């Protein structure tokens, strides 16, 4: 009796184990298969969005190639290196597009924030999110213009206490039924501006308009690492 029970449990356990292994393998394989294609479509989508928030009149360099790699930072919400796009007009720094992550949405919300050199926001866009359709998805520019509410905001014209949704006493709109989503985004954009204020000179130091590329990038990387060390 005991023996057959043990046998049955063993059968059940190995059955579960087998399906767990097969499923994991299938998932891993699909992930590997699709990763690159997905990354490419996200990048393509991002470039389209960058064109929307960094007006062509504000820069005359090749903004897609004048890039800086930013190390992971709490203020950006990132846990991996991200790319910032730098715009210059007649050699003078004019606009920076940085990637920020809002970690406290339903899932991570990926944003790009375009900031004029003086620290005012030119525009914000959501690159990817998993908010509830019909409730939290008004953050997409395709669905509503809510996200344009950030245009023109800066650390100077809004106090720290005003960087909140109206429900919490701040100055940013939200829609009934979904407050967590805008709250997360307002917080992430606020932090991204703080990051910009702290690191502005490094962002634009990457090189003269003509010299972008590896050496300039690694110089910034070096500078950034020093900053990180100092913080510690």
């Amino acid at each position: 009796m005991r023996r057959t029970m043990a046998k049955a449990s063993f059968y059940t356990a190995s059955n579960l184990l087998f399906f767990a292994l097969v499923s994991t393998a299938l998932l891993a394989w699909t992930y590997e298969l699709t990763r690159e294609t997905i990354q490419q479509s996200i990048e393509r989508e991002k470039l389209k969005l960058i064109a929307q928030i960094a007006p062509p009149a504000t820069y005359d360099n090749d903004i897609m190639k004048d890039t800086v790699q930013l190390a992971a930072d709490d203020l950006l919400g990132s846990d991996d290196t991200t790319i910032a796009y730098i715009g210059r007009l007649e050699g003078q720094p004019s606009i920076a597009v940085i990637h920020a992550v809002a970690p406290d949405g339903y899932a991570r919300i990926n944003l790009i924030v375009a900031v004029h050199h003086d620290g005012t926001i030119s525009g914000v866009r959501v690159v990817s999110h998993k908010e509830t359709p019909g409730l939290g998805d008004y953050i997409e520019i395709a669905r509503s213009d809510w996200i344009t509410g950030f245009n023109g905001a800066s650390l100077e014209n809004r106090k720290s206490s005003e960087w909140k949704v109206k429900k919490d006493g701040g100055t940013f709109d939200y829609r009934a039924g979904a407050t967590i989503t805008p709250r997360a985004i307002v917080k992430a954009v606020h932090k991204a501006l703080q990051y910009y204020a702290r690191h502005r000179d490094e962002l634009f130091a990457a090189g003269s308009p003509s010299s972008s590329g590896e050496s300039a990038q690694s110089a910034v990387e070096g500078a950034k690492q020093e900053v990180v060390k100092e913080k510690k």
Partner: protein
Amino acid sequence: MTIREIRDIFYNGLWKQDAGIVQLLGLCPLLAVSSSVVNALSLGLATTLVITLSNTGVAAIREFISNEARIPIYILMIAVLVTVVQLLMNAYMYALYLVLGIFIPLIVTNCIILARAESFASKNGIFASALDGIAMGLGLTAVLVVLGGIREIFGQGTLLSGIDLALGEATKSWIITVIPDYRGFLLAILPPGAFITLGMLIAAKNWLNLRAKRKVHGENATITPIEGGCSTAH
């Protein structure tokens, strides 16, 4: 399979055992989303796709799995399936993914999929299970679209708003303004509106059933409030 069996599967899926207004399974995410026709249709079609695939998968492996471990294995299968569908769509059908993509993860939480795996696919062949998935999915889609339509008219005064996001800029002219200069009615858009509307749909279906029954059995015939129902729902 005989024609009769196939007909029964579709009759069950689309009317008698309809997932939306009879079985009432896993409705919370669906109700939250059905605030417009386009959203409702998108979610309905995504669910139909997943339920058909999961039914087929469960029917294919039902002979090999241990009875005690079947539920965790179904859950595992459904979760993997949904994730794989999401990844493949994201990679190879990006335009479609932008429309349906956010709906797909919601489907994992929908227990209608697990209910069909347990109550139908685990006892029937691959072909019948696939058909059952399609029928159940379409039944749910129909309810969602009606629900979405009613909520959209009362909530925003329009029909088919957002269709340009699904089918391209050219279809923007399809949007119908049912009530011009409508100020909007928030209750219809929020989840309570969904529950109230759904309740009325269920009442309407029961009324139709009762009327049909009285025609056959005379004026004193009655029906149980929710006819049918699904054993796994209790």
